[in-house]
C-alpha cells in the first residue's frame, strides 16, 4: 500500500513516516500543500493523509482539487482543528476520515488500514485466497493453519496481490504501491520480492502455487482449479 503524507511539522511528518513504513506501507511525504497536490495528481496512492493548515495550498483546497478531478483516493485529514465546523467542513469536502491531533499511533494505523480497505472495497480486515488468510489489523498471515513469518514489505506485497486476487498486477503497480521512490526502472526488486514471497507462503501441508506470472504483464494471485 502506498500512502501520501502531507504534514508541515517536520517532527510529526518524519515520525509518522517511520511508523507507516514500519507497518508495511510505502510512504511519500512532503511538507508543502502545492507539492502534495502535485504528487497526488501524478501518482496513484491507496490513501492520502493531509494536514489542513499547510504552507502553500491548504489541505481542504488540495482535497477539493482532487475531487474536482474525479480522483477518488481515500483521504484522511490529520489536523489540530477540532471544532465541529472544521470536521463537518472537512468531511463534506470529500474526506473519508478526520483525525484530530494529538492522536494515538494505533488509532492512526487502524484508520489508515480502514482507508486502504475502503480503496479495495473490503469491509473486513481478513482477506482470504485459497487457504491463505491475511489479517490486515493483526498483521498476521497464515496458510492452512500455519502462521507465516513475513517482513513488512512482503506482507504489503501479499496484501496487495490478495486484494487484487484474480486480476493481473503489473510490476509498475507493485512498485508504486509497495515501494517508495527508491525503486529504479531497471531494478528487479519486484521479481526478487515475488520469488521470496512464493517461498515463504509454501508450507509443508499446503504447497499449491497461488502467485502466477503472466509473461509481459505481471503477476496474478488466484487458486487455479486442477
Amino acid at each position, binding site marked *: 500500500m502506498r500512502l501520501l503524507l502531507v504534514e508541515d511539522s517536520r517532527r510529526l511528518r518524519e515520525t509518522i513516516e517511520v511508523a507507516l513504513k514500519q507497518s508495511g506501507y510505502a510512504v511519500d511525504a512532503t511538507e508543502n500543500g502545492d507539492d502534495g497536490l502535485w504528487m497526488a495528481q501524478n501518482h496513484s496512492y491507496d490513501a492520502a493523509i493531509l494536514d489542513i493548515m499547510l504552507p502553500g495550498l491548504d489541505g481542504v483546497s488540495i482535497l477539493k482539487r482532487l475531487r474536482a478531478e474525479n480522483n477518488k483516493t481515500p483521504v484522511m485529514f490529520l489536523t489540530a482543528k477540532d471544532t465541529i465546523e472544521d470536521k463537518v467542513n472537512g468531511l463534506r469536502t470529500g474526506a473519508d476520515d478526520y483525525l484530530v491531533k494529538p*492522536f494515538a499511533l494505533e488509532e492512526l494505523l487502524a484508520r489508515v488500514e480502514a482507508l486502504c480497505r475502503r480503496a479495495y472495497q473490503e469491509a473486513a480486515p481478513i482477506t482470504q485466497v485459497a487457504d491463505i488468510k491475511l489479517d490486515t489489523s493483526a498483521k498476521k498471515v497464515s496458510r492452512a493453519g500455519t502462521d507465516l513469518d513475513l517482513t513488512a514489505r512482503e506482507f504489503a506485497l501479499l496484501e496487495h496481490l490478495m486484494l487484487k486476487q484474480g486480476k493481473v498486477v503489473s510490476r509498475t503497480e507493485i512498485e508504486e504501491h509497495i515501494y517508495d521512490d527508491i525503486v529504479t526502472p531497471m531494478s528487479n526488486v519486484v521479481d526478487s520480492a515475488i520469488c521470496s514471497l512464493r517461498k515463504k507462503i509454501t508450507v509443508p501441508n499446503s504447497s499449491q502455487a497461488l502467485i502466477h506470472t503472466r509473461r509481459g504483464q505481471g503477476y496474478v494471485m488466484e487458486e487455479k482449479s486442477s
Partner: protein
Amino acid sequence: MKSIRRKLTIWLSGGLLLLWIAAGAGIYLAVRNGLFKAIDAQLTVDREVTRFLSKTETQREDNFFPDRPGPPRRPSDKLAQYKEIGSGYYYQSWDERGNSSEQSESVGDLILPIPRPTSQMPEFATIQIGDGTRLRTMNFRSAPGGKGRSKGGKSRNNSHTIITIAHDLSETDQTLSTLLGGLIVVGLLAAGGTVVLVGTSLKQGLKPLRELGDQTAAIDAGNLSTRFDATKTPVELKPVYSRLNGLMDRIQISFDRERRFSADLAHEIRTPIAELKMLSEVALKWPDQAGPDTFKDTLDIALQLETMTESLLALARWESGETKLNIEEVNLETLTKNCWTPYAATADQKQHEVIFQFTEPAILDSDPALLSHVLNNLFSNAVEYTAESGSITVSSLDDGIRISNSPHGLSEKEISRIFDRYWRREEARSDSSHVGLGLSLARSCSDALGLDLAASTDAEWLSFTLRKKNPTT
C-alpha cells in the same frame, strides 16, 4: 425583588387614589360649607324676624325688612315657622343670669343649651341637643336697654339679653350623607378603574422592555452576530438599543478574539503534544527506530512548550499588574542602541539599511529591564520580517520612539490582529521556533509601563510607535 411595574403601579395607583380622596373630600367640604353658609345667611335674616316675635301682627308686618328695597315682605310666614312645633326653627333668649326670658312656640319641650356669646356680633355654632338633633345656631347679645324683654314684659334696659336662633340640620345632614355616599361610590369605582387603567397602561408601556428582554434572552455565544431591532422601539428606548448594539459589537469582537486565541492556543499546543506522543509511541513500538535524533526532537519540543508556558505566564503576570516595576530615568537613545546590538549582525546579513534618528536626548521615567524587553521584541520582528535589502528606521518622538521597517508585506487586516495572542502571519504555523506571543507580551509590558504601543502602516512602511499614554484617554 425590585419590579419597575410593581413600583409604578403602587406609586401611580396610590397617588391617584389619594388625589381621588382629596378631590372627594374637597367636594364634600365645599358643599357642606356652602350649605352651612346658606343656613347662616338664613339665620341672619331670621334674626330680624325675631325682633317682631313680641310685637303685634301689624307692627311686625310694617317693620319687617325695613331697610330692603321694594315692597315690604310679610314676616308672618317666617314667624309661623317659629310657632310650629317640629318645624326645625327655634328662637330662645335668656337674661344674664341664665333665666329663659323668651322662646318661640316651636321650642316646645326642647332644652336649648345657654350660649355664651361675647358680643352683639352673631356667633355661629353647630350643636347637638338632648334628643340627638343637630342644630345650627346663631348666638348674640342684645344691646343694653334694647330689645330683650323679660317673660313678664318688664323692660331690662340696662342689661344684656342672650339670644339664640337655631335651625335644624336634619335636612342638611341628610343631603350631606347622600353626597358622601355618592362620593364614596364614585370614589370606589374611580379607584378600581384607576388600578385597572394603571395596570393596563404599565403593561402596555413596559411591553418594549419585555421585548428587549426576550431579544436579549435569545442571544447566546452561538449567535453573537444578532443585533437588537430598534425599528418598532419607542423613542425613549432607542438610545438603550443603540448602546446595547454597541455592546454586542464589542462582545462579538472580544468573543471572536478569544475564539481565535483558543483555536490558536489549541493548535500551538496540540501539534507539539502530537509530535511528542508520536515520537514516544514509535520509539516504544519500534525501539530500533529511536536514536539520538528522537531525543533531540523530544528536547526541542519540551523547550518549545517551556517557552510557550513562560510567555503565557509572563503575559498573565503583566496583564494582572502585580509585578513590581523599578522606575528610574532612562536615556532612550542609549537603551535603544544597546537593545539593537544583538540584532545588528542579522540585519547586516540581510543587508538591511538601518537608520537611527534621535534629534535630542530623550529621557523617560521607566523600568529599563521591561522597556528593553519591549524594544527587543520590536527589533526582533523588524529584523526577521523585513525583506532582504529592506530598511529599518528608529526615530525618537517627543514622548517616545518609533521603529519602522520596509517592506513588510502585511495587510491592514493583519496589522489589526498583530497584537493578538498566538497570531501568526503564516496560518500554517509550521515554524516551531516562534510562539506568536512576542508582540502580545510587548504590548502588555508597555501597558504596565504606562506606554502605548501601536502599529500602523503607511505604504511600504510598518511602524511601531511606543509613547507615553495620554492621561485623558
